[in-house]
């Protein structure tokens, strides 16, 4: 009997994320804060959404990501 090995959390294959519409590969167990850091955006005025929910700045380090998660990292720009 075979054991199916489904690795929803990414497992050894890592964490496949979509960030601002682009596919990006991160390590398993990566947090939203780690992603912000990796993008060079720590300390920048950005807000983060994971799967269409805002993750407040204070909670970014506790937000564990899974493969398939969709992130939006946004900032303020000019507009009317």
């Amino acid at each position: 009997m075979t054991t199916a090995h489904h690795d929803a959390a990414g497992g050894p294959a890592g964490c496949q994320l979509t960030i601002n519409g682009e596919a990006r590969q991160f390590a398993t167990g990566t947090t939203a804060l780690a992603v912000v850091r990796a993008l060079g955006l720590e300390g920048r005025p950005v807000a983060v959404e994971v799967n269409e929910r805002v993750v407040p700045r204070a909670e970014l380090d506790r937000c564990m990501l899974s493969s398939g998660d969709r992130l939006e990292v946004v900032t303020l720009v000019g507009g009317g």
Partner: protein
Amino acid sequence: MTSAADSTAADTLQIGGLTLSSRLVVGTGKYATYAEMARCLEASGTDCVTVAVRRERLVNAAGENILDHLDTRRYTLLPNTAGCYSADDAVRVARLGRELLRDLGNPGSEWVKIEVLGDPKTLLPDPVGTLEATARLVEDGFTVLVYTSDDPVIARRLKDLGAASVMPAGSPIGSGQGILNANNLRICMEYLKDGDPGYPVIVDAGVGTASDVAEAMELGVDGVLLNTAIAHATDPLRMARAMKAACEAGREAFLAGRMPRRLYATASSPDEGVIGRRA
């Protein structure tokens, strides 16, 4: 009848618990440079500016950010939901805008200018999506200022849903056509201010030049929101000054109470003592 004391009291704009001293709200988009934007905002005399929420660059993100050029202690930032074509998207964007402003400690952090568009060619609002977004964001604790058409029925529904200010368009966004339907605007104000004369009505969209602002203020609107009229003027800084003057002139004229229109003439010089023959 107003007394001398009334006429010198501060004529400020009250929206949802906040007091603004200028009746112009100015957009931050479409300027040639951030530096020009900053100069124009200062010249306009505004104390409230709109901003948009967009994806950050994932490469080369160490470029300039608009916040490097906006004094967030001087201006209340009003995030918009520009570019949203559904209530779902507008709600997401509003919440992201709130998160961004909370980090800045700006008084606009619980504010949002709702735009739910129906059509990319005209940028006219989708009334159904606008009503839904207003209801959801009011429920979520936002102070909602809502971009809408000059339809008085929708305007009243938006107020009934809890919008802190209803903002009818003069003409399509960025079109510079001014106020196309002053009659509808008058009716919007009548409905929105019925029993509630202090309810803020702001003309938002389509302003092209200073006379449009003066016209709006003379009709009795509480404020005007504009962006392109300054940013796309040949001399934006000069136009920003013109807009400030026009807003003040229109407001003063409204408060002064204009003379009535008459069909026939009434002479400005006396009838008696004229030499020569009378017609």
